[in-house]
């Protein structure tokens, strides 16, 4: 599937560039893209390491287990059969809290830790498990309390009240999340 998506994107770009005669631009974009992936990874490296270091401290202090307890009713519904105090459950809770608090750069390391733990908990043989899919779909919707990036852009553009879209964002985001979860639940049935 990932193979198909990637090849499809590359071929669509190359094919379209032949139609529009933008061959040179696309070639340049190919190398620029590879280069910007390096820049992004390097800048990610710092924040990811920092957060995963702090998470390890929180883990040793028993804080992550406490957070997991807070979310455990929600987790029982969303991830049936997941060990409530296992590594995966705690990492999922940390990821959810980071998303909620708008610490986007912290959500990724916690999310990756959760994926690793989910992979350990159940043998997957390169095929996504139901729990992984639920978790990834939740993260593509990303419910956050404060849309800080968008608010900053609005304020730069001279908005009278940059945060006036907040309630709308909550409702839309929550609806998106519910829609994603029910879609993955419905699609799960027919493999």
């Amino acid at each position, binding site marked *: 599937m990932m193979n198909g998506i990637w090849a499809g994107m590359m071929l669509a770009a190359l094919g379209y560039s032949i139609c529009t005669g933008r061959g040179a631009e696309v070639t340049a974009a190919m190398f620029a893209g590879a280069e910007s*992936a390096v820049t992004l990874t390097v800048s990610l*490296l710092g924040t990811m390491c920092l957060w995963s270091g702090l998470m390890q401290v929180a883990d*040793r202090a028993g804080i992550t287990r406490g957070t997991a307890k807070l979310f455990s009713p929600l987790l029982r519904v969303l991830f049936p059969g997941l060990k409530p105090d296992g590594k995966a459950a705690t990492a999922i809770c940390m990821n959810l809290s980071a998303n909620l608090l708008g610490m986007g750069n912290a959500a990724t390391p916690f999310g990756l830790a959760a994926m690793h733990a989910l992979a350990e908990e159940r043998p997957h043989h390169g095929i996504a498990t139901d729990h992984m899919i639920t978790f990834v779909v939740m993260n593509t919707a990303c419910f956050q309390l404060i849309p800080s990036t968008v608010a900053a*852009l609005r304020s730069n553009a*001279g908005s009278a009240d940059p945060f*006036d879209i907040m309630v709308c964002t909550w409702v839309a985001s929550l609806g998106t999340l519910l829609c994603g979860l029910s879609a993955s639940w419905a699609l799960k049935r027919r493999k």
Partner: protein
Amino acid sequence: MLHWLNIWAVPVVVAGVLLTAILRRVPVFDAFMEGVRAGARSCAGIFPSLLGLITAVSMLRASGALEGLAQVLTPLTVHIGLPAELVPLVLLRPVSGGGSIALLQELLGQVGPDSFTGRVASVLAGATETTFYTITVYFGAVHIRKIRHTLPAALLADAACVLLSLLTVRWFFS
């Protein structure tokens, strides 16, 4: 209140973690370094899939395929009340986080942040994550090749997000 939460969430969380750990006699720096090492491994693990995705998206944008698709779709999207200016953002949002932020900035400058279109664009950008990026990075980190129904479910959610952005703004600001 929420502005305060925005500024103070990170420092308060960090201070709370450190103080609790010290009270519970955790060797904080040792634990921190252990976590950093795991983080570095994790970051190295996502690099290949990240490079693949970003290269493909960058090519897709340069080829003009997204604008082409936007042009084809515009007559259809008008039916659901989606302003034509928003179609490129709708298409770019799931594939490129940085790209859609840049596009939002441009759009807000053009139509004004407090117009209907500007508000819908803001809600749209804030209410969802970059779907393809999340899928690539999360599944790439644990070497998943078959993602089953993840993509249809996530894209369906993105489509719902477009409708919800329109509906909430219309309902809330009229």
